[in-house]
């Protein structure tokens, strides 16, 4: 049993504790050790305990961040005893929290890291419940050594290639859960708060990068505060531009008014307008989106008086009014510089009848979609 001793000296606290706990209460788990003779259990009891104390001693000495050492041992541990480890963990699953409680309480010199890993294992096994996958459990638990995290699922230090490969396999095999899988990086603190902080920081940096692409001229600035100022300036400039353009539009637009009246006069008579306008609205697929249907119903109630027209799913875009007829309508002031997309949309608007109300002026409480909570 010499091979047992060498890896046992570096036995992870988790394994040691668990082994201790199991072998302290052989009555519970004896039945699960059928493939292995009792000699093994008795023989390895002493080395495990000595290794456990040794590990406590050296773990207390600030080995918290040096996970590589532990995992180096774990590797040969796993290679030496694949099935033993699996059997060790089988009873652990059934062993309930009481075993771990006693082991945790018994080990007076256990660091907080080990305690958290116990919690991790306990909660994981309680919630994960995948004892059928012994190997994956073993490898996952080995990788969680030293990771003090309360997250039930998959907080693994990404230390070694084979373990990361195993972890990637486990990711496929592990039961899908709703939690976000976080991977603690090498040399970084692994408690739950710092991991949450890290995830939050990553999300924020992702969004800042996205904003950097949006805001022109922002790529030169790297600081967070500088970026924020740039973004604020850009938003302010956009709002000022809207104001300025609305002033311009207020001044220059009466011409459009006249032409629309003439358009209405020409179009209203045509009874096919109504049916033609529906396919126009359905032209862009976005309009069939659910949220738009709710907004679209708003227009309906204002214009059509019937709310089923736009909600018809069988809108045929091909039946749209031809562009040529629209083009004649849209020669406002002889300026037909609008692109076809806008043209078709303008056609819709012109055909939808007069008495169009401003969206925000004609809203009444009963017209509001349900998920748009307004307080009037």
């Amino acid at each position, binding site marked *: 049993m010499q091979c047992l001793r060498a890896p046992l000296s570096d036995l992870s606290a988790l394994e040691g504790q668990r082994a201790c706990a199991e072998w302290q209460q052989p009555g519970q788990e004896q039945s699960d050790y059928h493939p292995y003779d009792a000699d093994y259990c008795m023989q390895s009891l002493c080395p495990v305990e000595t290794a456990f104390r040794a590990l406590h001693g050296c773990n207390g000495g600030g080995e918290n961040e040096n996970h590589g050492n532990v995992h180096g041992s774990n590797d040969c541990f796993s290679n030496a005893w694949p099935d033993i480890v699996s059997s060790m963990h089988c009873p652990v699953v059934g062993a309930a929290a009481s075993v771990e409680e006693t082991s945790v309480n018994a080990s007076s010199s256990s660091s907080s890291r080990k305690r958290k890993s116990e919690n991790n294992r306990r909660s994981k096994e309680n919630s994960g419940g995948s004892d059928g996958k012994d190997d994956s459990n073993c490898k996952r638990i080995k990788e969680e050594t030293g990771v003090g995290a309360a997250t039930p699922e998959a907080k693994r230090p990404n230390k070694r290639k084979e373990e990361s490969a195993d972890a990637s396999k486990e990711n496929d095999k592990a039961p899908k859960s709703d939690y976000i899988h976080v991977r603690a990086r090498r040399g970084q603190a692994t408690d739950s708060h710092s991991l949450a902080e890290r995830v939050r920081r990553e999300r924020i940096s992702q969004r800042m990068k996205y*904003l950097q692409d949006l805001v022109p001229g922002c790529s030169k600035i790297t600081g967070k505060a500088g970026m924020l100022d740039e973004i604020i300036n850009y938003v302010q400039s956009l709002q000022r531009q809207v104001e300025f353009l609305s002033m311009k539009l207020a001044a220059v637009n009466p011409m459009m008014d006249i032409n629309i009246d003439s358009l209405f006069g020409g179009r209203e008579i045509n009874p096919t307008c109504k049916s033609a306008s529906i396919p126009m609205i359905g032209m862009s697929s*976005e309009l069939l*989106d659910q949220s738009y249907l709710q*907004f679209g119903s708003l227009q309906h109630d204002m214009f059509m008086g019937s709310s089923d027209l736009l909600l018809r799913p069988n809108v045929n875009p091909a039946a749209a009014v031809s562009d040529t007829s629209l083009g004649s309508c849209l020669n406002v002031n002889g300026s037909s510089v609008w692109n076809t997309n806008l043209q078709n949309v303008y056609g819709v*608007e012109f055909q939808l009848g007069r008495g169009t*109300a401003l969206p925000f*002026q004609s809203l009444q409480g009963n017209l509001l979609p349900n998920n748009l909570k307004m307080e009037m």
Partner: protein
Amino acid sequence: WRAPPGTRTLTPRFGPSKPMLAFRFLRALTLVHRTAANSSNAARSRRIQRAAFASMAYSAGPRRAWSRALLCRLHFHRARRRCAGRRRAAGVPRRPSTTGSPADGLRRLVPGGTGMDYCGLLEETADYIRCLSEQVKLMQSIVDSVGPGGR
């Protein structure tokens, strides 16, 4: 610790719908010109500006916090205007925030930004910037298409 199960990813959301934006805004624009042809340019421009924001908010959809907040603000102001006559809301003087987070300025700018965490604020800002730039492009194209000698 676990993150909420429905945490959104950063894929850019559905994005502003340009045809809808154009449609709504133009409709609003024509209405403003029809009904307020006699009022001053300034009043009309205010209405057009409000129409721009409203069409922006409607096009963005109810899924965005800023669009909901913007529409709430517009409706609230409209209700107040109708009930209480023409009364200008006093503008709160802006103080540079020496204390507090650096995102306060952004929170004031983006509608609905005050009740959000920083992460959500950034996402809303991105969407707001996208919609604002679409609106500006649309308005600019309208101004351009009407021609240099508008009136």
